[in-house]
Structure formats: structure tokens, C-alpha cells
């Protein structure tokens, strides 16, 4: 889809009467900017390794109300025990399929914007963020009151299931007030052949609050998944992120984390698994604006087939962010002759009293280790499996909730047995 092709769809969304008039100038403003900039290309440093060919060739349309009924649906497959689930079919909120959540304030996108006096929380000039703002049509916002601590994790389950190639643009806000804490699961599932998920998640963590953010993405092999997460953290807040990315033709995750208050801590983790020709990218930017903050980035890729993996992690320690403790790690397994890995772990440091380290390794399974296991009676397949499992399993430790952890480990085991 070229940038010009978006005009038709934009006409459609701006004429939808069920959206508030107040939103239209926000959309228009974003779309004008997008039209001016156009889509990113490889000449931009940030987009150097991202191949948009598949995206440019597809033509996506808006998800209409007729798309709110799925083609096929088997929710049991995606069940995670002890979670409150909110279901979105092709971007449309399905009340009848969702759990009822008491005591937690859930707002629609419009209501949230209204509560913020019709201004965007994180305006950005990233072309896909501008597209998201122009077309935002789904999602929900969670607002936690002071000291609130919902017992069950809240899960947003996005299911894409339609004949057409749909464009879905959720905009989600999560506001954690003083001393509150939440486990939030973002679960994306694709039944459609090809669709374009362009999500924007904005988190605000006030003093001493904590947010565990888990993202599970298993799409159809032709899906385009472009996600942005923007986190702003105040004093002593804690943010943990874990992402499991599987399938999808193009998957790009941009996480921007601003540590604005002293003592804030963030830990960003991810595991990307490929089977054939996926493009799995993780672009992480951690900004240390305040002293005594700690951050870690830990990403792993296992690449098969003609897939490619990107890790572009950057930690910026600004001048007054003394006593920063920051770690970056990127480890990759390449298991085929045609897979490509681009790893750019970057550090930008303007303060002197800091501890910053990063490391990156790329390679295949150690032949000696395989030999060792085989000499003890394991089959070649099982030896490989065991090594891959050992490679990935450390990441799952960041997930504190047992039922989610089990679900993710099952997903991983399934992928592993299909792959070996």
C-alpha cells in the first residue's frame, strides 16, 4: 500500500458519523502530516533494515461494522486461566464475548481523549504513528485509581478474521496512578490471510506504580504487524515487558521508554521465533532522564528459513542521569543458510557515574554441545531441541504470573516441536 492509497480510506473514516466531531481535527492534522512525510524508506537510519515490500504491495481497507462478525472462531484455543479477557474482533469490541471487569475504569478511545481534553498524550512524527492517529478505530484504555491493584491480569485479545485485507489501528492508553499495579496482556491472533495491525500503546506510570506488560503475537504468515509502545515512568515506578513474536510476514515492535523520575526501573524482554520468511524486528529506545534509574533490554531471536531478525536497541543516558545502571543483551541463533540477523545494540552516554554494558552474540548451535548430547544417547532432533530450549527459557523468568507463563511456554514448546 503506497502512501497515496491511504487517501480513499481516510475519506471514509472522516465521514463516519458515529465518531465525535472533536476527533476529526486530530485525525486530519495527523493525516496531513503523514501525507507530507510519506512512508519511511531504507534511507532513514531507523528503517534501514525494515523491508516494506510486502506492505507496499498489499491494499488494505478499513474494518467496517460488517467485519465485527468473525469468519470462524474458537476462543478456547486462546484461553488463559485466571485472566479477565476483553475481545476485539477485527478491531471491534465484542461485549458478549468479553469478561465483565468490575472496579477498573475502562474507557473507550473517545472517552479517554475527552478526559484528556482532546489532546494526544504522545504526539509523534513517526509515519506509522501518524497513520494510527488518522485511522484509530479500536482499542480501549485502562485507568487505575490510586493504590488500585486488580487481582486478575487484564487481557486484550485481538482477533483478525476476515476475507478482506483489513487495516486495524488500535490506540490504547494505560494510566497507572500512585501505588497501583497491573498485569496487562496484549494478545494478537490472526485468522485472516493478510491484514495490517498498526497499534499504538501508551503507558503512564505514576510514582511507585508497576505495570507488567506481556505481548503475545501469533499471526497468519502474511500479516503485517507494526506496533509501538511508549512508556513514561515517574519516580520509583516499575515497568516489565515481555514479548513473544511468532509468524507474520512483517513484524516490527518499537518501544520507547522515558525514565523521568528518580529510581524508576524498566526491563524490556523479547523472544522472536521464525519458521519461514518472517521479518521480526525489535527497536527499543530507553531514555534515562533521571538519576538512580535502572534499565535492561534482553532480546533473543531464533531464525529459520529465509527469515530475518533485527535488534536495534538504544540506551541514552542524559547528562543528569547519574548512577544509572543499564544492561543490553541480544543473543541470536541462526539455523539456516538464508536467514539474516542485524543486531545494533547502541549506547549513548552523557553522564560519567554510570554502569552501562551491552553484549551481542550471533551464531548457530554449538556442534560440540550437540555431539556431547548425542554421545549420551539423545537423537539429533532432541539434542537440538534441548539446546534451543536452554537458549530461550531464561527469558520466561520475567513473567511473574504462573498461568501466563504456562501459556507462553506451551506456545514455545509447540513451535519447537513443529520446527524440529
Amino acid at each position, binding site marked *: 500500500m503506497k502512501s497515496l492509497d491511504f487517501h480513499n480510506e481516510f475519506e471514509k473514516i472522516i465521514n463516519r458519523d458515529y465518531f465525535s466531531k472533536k476527533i476529526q481535527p486530530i485525525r486530519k492534522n495527523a493525516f496531513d502530516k503523514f501525507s507530507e512525510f510519506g512512508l519511511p524508506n531504507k534511507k532513514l537510519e531507523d528503517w534501514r533494515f525494515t523491508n516494506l515490500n510486502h506492505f507496499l504491495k498489499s491494499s488494505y481497507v478499513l474494518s467496517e461494522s460488517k467485519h465485527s462478525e468473525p469468519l470462524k472462531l474458537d476462543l478456547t484455543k486462546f484461553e488463559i486461566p485466571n485472566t479477565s479477557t476483553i475481545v476485539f474482533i477485527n478491531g471491534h469490541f465484542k461485549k458478549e464475548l468479553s469478561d465483565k471487569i468490575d472496579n477498573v475504569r475502562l474507557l473507550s478511545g473517545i472517552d479517554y481523549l475527552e478526559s484528556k481534553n482532546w489532546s494526544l498524550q504522545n504526539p509523534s512524527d513517526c509515519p506509522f504513528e501518524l497513520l494510527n492517529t488518522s485511522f484509530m478505530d479500536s482499542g480501549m484504555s485502562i485507568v487505575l485509581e490510586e493504590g488500585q491493584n486488580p487481582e486478575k491480569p487484564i487481557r486484550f485479545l485481538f482477533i483478525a478474521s476476515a476475507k478482506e485485507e483489513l487495516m486495524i489501528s488500535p490506540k490504547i492508553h494505560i494510566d497507572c496512578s500512585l501505588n497501583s499495579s497491573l498485569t496487562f496482556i496484549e494478545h494478537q491472533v490472526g485468522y485472516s490471510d493478510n491484514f495490517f495491525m498498526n497499534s499504538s500503546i501508551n503507558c503512564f506510570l505514576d510514582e511507585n506504580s508497576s505495570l507488567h506488560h506481556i505481548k503475545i503475537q501469533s499471526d497468519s504468515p502474511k500479516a503485517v504487524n507494526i506496533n509501538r509502545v511508549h512508556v513514561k515512568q515517574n519516580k520509583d515506578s516499575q515497568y516489565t515487558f515481555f514479548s513473544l513474536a511468532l509468524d507474520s510476514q512483517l513484524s516490527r515492535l518499537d518501544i520507547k521508554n522515558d525514565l523521568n523520575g528518580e529510581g524508576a526501573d524498566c526491563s524490556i524482554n523479547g523472544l522472536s521465533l521464525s519458521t519461514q520468511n518472517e521479518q521480526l524486528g525489535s527497536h527499543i529506545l530507553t531514555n534515562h532522564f533521571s538519576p538512580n534509574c535502572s534499565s535492561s533490554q534482553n532480546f533473543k531471536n531464533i531464525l529459520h528459513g529465509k527469515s530475518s531478525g533485527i535488534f536495534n536497541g538504544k540506551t541514552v543516558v542524559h547528562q543528569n542521569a547519574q548512577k544509572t545502571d543499564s544492561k543490553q543483551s541480544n543473543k*541470536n541463533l541462526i539455523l539456516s543458510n538464508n536467514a539474516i540477523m542485524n543486531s545494533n545494540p547502541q549506547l549513548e552516554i552523557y553522564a560519567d557515574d554510570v554502569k552501562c554494558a551491552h553484549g551481542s552474540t550471533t551464531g548457530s548451535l554449538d556442534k560440540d554441545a550437540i555431539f556431547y548430547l548425542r554421545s549420551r544417547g539423545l537423537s539429533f532432533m532432541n539434542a537440538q531441541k534441548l539446546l534451543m530450549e536452554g537458549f530461550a527459557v531464561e527469558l520466561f523468568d520475567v513473567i511473574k504470573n504462573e498461568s501466563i507463563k504456562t501459556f507462553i511456554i506451551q506456545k514455545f514448546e509447540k513451535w519447537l516441536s513443529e520446527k524440529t
Partner: protein
Amino acid sequence: MPNEQQIIDSNLSKEYEYGFVSDIESETLPPGLNENIIRIISKKKDEPQWLLDWRLKAFELWKKLPEPSWANVKYEKIDYQAISYFSAPKKKELASLDEVDPELLRTYDKLGIPLEEQKMLSGVAVDAVFDSVSVATTFKEDLKKEGVIFCSFSEAVKEYPHLVKKYLGSVVPHSDNYYATLNSAVFTDGSFVYIPKGVRCPMELSTYFRINEANTGQFERTLIIADKDSHVSYLEGCTAPMRDENQLHAAVVELVALENATIKYSTVQNWYPGAPDTGLGGIYNFVTKRGACLGENSRISWTQVETGSAVTWKYPSCILKGDNSVGEFYSVAVTNNFQQADTGTKMIHIGKNTKSTIISKGISAGKGQQTYRGEVKIMKGAENARNFSQCDSILIGDKCGAHTFPYIDVRNPSAQMEHEATTSNIGEDQMFYCNQRGISSEDAVSMIVNGFCKDVFKELPMEFAVEATKLMEVSLEGSVG
């Protein structure tokens, strides 16, 4: 005993020791760059037509190229028309040292590298480049016996045109990048080395570059060819006098290593870093250095100690084309006061079983900004390629910066690739440990920094290791607390 802050202040405010201007008449072209200037340079150097054509081709391209701006450095835009592209000391063709202008000799004395002494004591052949034209070349006869060619570039063009024509631009083509293209159009002189088959060069080859004439950009071109089974170690060192206007240095160094050949290229760079309180007047060091390991089992090793220049922007690289070839990069870079450096390396693995090692140590003090930017690329056919990178930085003072931007691109599953980096300051506990045992803060810092750099210094040839340690002392010792 002075306290730490006083030590910091006194050392940070240390003036550049080697700032002076030699008073030698020189023949200089008016500033400006056009086709005519290139023709004049070519004519003055009595060059053959093919070389002039090559220069003009590069110049045509240069006019169309945009000036790059991606580096993590800030500097005032260069006015390429304000630079004079040719400057040569008037006295030429000297047979022995006695004929060299005494003023020039004094210049070397001040730098602590008296030509005669070096000749006698260290056995180093020195091809002294004073501004742009080689004035005196020593030990030429000794080298001739082994068949080693070590001469100025212009001499090589006249004497060995077949070699120059074959290898010039083979590693760094005239279209490579903005500054290499500019260099290809206007280069004035440089060094040329050819080591014949099976010869181990009997001595370390060395060139001292020196920017002398005000407003003269130096556009050196170095070409080193190591034929099959040969071995050479080459030293390059630089100092420059104090200037108020920024001076551009856009040199090109090309290394070619054939089968089983080894080239070791060491640099100690100590150009004028600019006025300590403003950063004005320092050298812009935008150099393109690249080596090609063409043959099997060949090896290229870059070692650099960068303490000078206002802006350093260079990436000595290795193209590992031959099977089993090895590329190495050892670097210590110091940025103090207003110095900026964006440096690193590129290792392109093409052949099978190729290996590369990158050790980069950055020390940033005062308001210095330092960036390590490196690329390791493992191409599809590079079976069993191996890379190890380590980039560490020390930060001294709260106004400096250290940045690391590695690019790792792996296209072969059998590759093994490791990268690690740390950034920290000198720990209070380390300082305390030393102080407690009666070592002054100044000595402790010197000790810690020296230990930090040891991995790189041990790669330097003997002669340079001494100079490097001395340079580190001048640039840094005690500027920390």
C-alpha cells in the same frame, strides 16, 4: 598535596605542547578548487595522463556528491574553496640530512624525533613528509637490497607506474565516499610501499606526517602492497602546530595483502586538538583507511592511538576476501576538552574461515564526545567466520560522553559473532584502594588508564609503545579524580 579538583583543573588546562609554526618558505597555490588547480597539481608533479584523468574523474564525481552528515560529531561547515590544495617546501631533492633546512630539523627536534638519532639508534627508516612533499628518505639503500620499495607516492608514479596503476583505487575506489573522492582528485603526495614475494621487511617503516603551512589541507595517499609470503610493519605518527583556523586532513590509506602476507599498520595521532577553552582551531581528521586481505592466509592489523584532532572521523577497515584471512583492529582513542571522535572499524567477512578481532578503548574527559561505530558483516559465503569485538569506554568528568553504535550483520549460520561493551567511570573504590596504599590520585588514574589500554598498547611496535604511553600521560594523566 594538591587536591583532585586542582589536578583536574591544571591538567585540563594544559596547553598543547607541540604548538609552533616552522618558518620555512613554501610554494603554495592560491586557495580554491577547480579543474585548473587539479591540472596544475598534476603538472607540478609531472604526472602521466592516466593519473590526471583519474583525478578529473574523481573531481567530476565529487562535485555531485552530497557532504555526509551522519557522524555523531559537530563542526563548522568546511569551505572547500578556502583551502589551498598544494604546498611544498621550496628546497627539494636533498641527498643527505646535512642538506635539509636546519629549521626543519629543529622542528623534528621539538617533536622529540630527531632524524639522525632515530637513524642511528632505532633502525627506523623515516620517510619524512613535511607538508606535502617528501623531503628526505633514509635507509633507502638498505631496503633496496631486499627489493623493498619505500618511497614517496610521486616517485612511485614515475618509477613504478605498473604497480601504482594496478593497485591505486583497488581498495578505496575514487567513488568510495565524499572525502576519499576529494582526496582522489587533489592528493599531493604520500608514501608507497611494495614488499616483494617472500621478503620480511628488515625494519619498521615509518612516516611522520606534519601539517605545517597555514590553510593547507593535507591530502595524503598511502598505498602499501605486500606480495605473497611477505611481512611488513608500518608506522604513522602525526603532530601539527597551533592554528586558529580549522584544517582539514582527508587522507586515504590503501593496504593490499596477497597470499600469506601480513601488514601491520600502526598510528599514533596527536594533531592539534583545538584551543583548550573553546575547541577552535583544531584539525579535522576525516581519513579513509582500508585494507584488503586478497590472498589466502593473509593478515591485516590496524593499531591506532588517537589523542589529537578536534574532530576525528575514521574507520580503518578490513575486507577479508581470502580464505583463512585475519583482520585485527586495536584502538585507543582519547577525547579531552572539546575534542570529538567518531571512530571504529568495519570487518567484511567474505572468505571462508575468516577471523576478525576488534578491541576498542575509549577515554572521554572534559567536554569530549566519543563514539565507537563499527560494522561486522558476515556474507553468505563466509563459512565458519569468527568475530570478537570488545569496546570499552571510561568517562572522566560529567560533561563528556561515550557512545557505542555497533552494526552486526550476519548472513551465514556457521558464523560465530560476539560483541561486548562496557561504559563506566573510574570507580571510587579503585581510587580508594590505590590512595590507601599510598599512591597519589594522579598516579592511580594514570595506572588505571594505562591498564585499561594495555590490550592495545601491547600490539604497538616497541618505538611507538613508548611514545603512546608518553602521549597518554600528556593527554590525560591526573585529569581525573
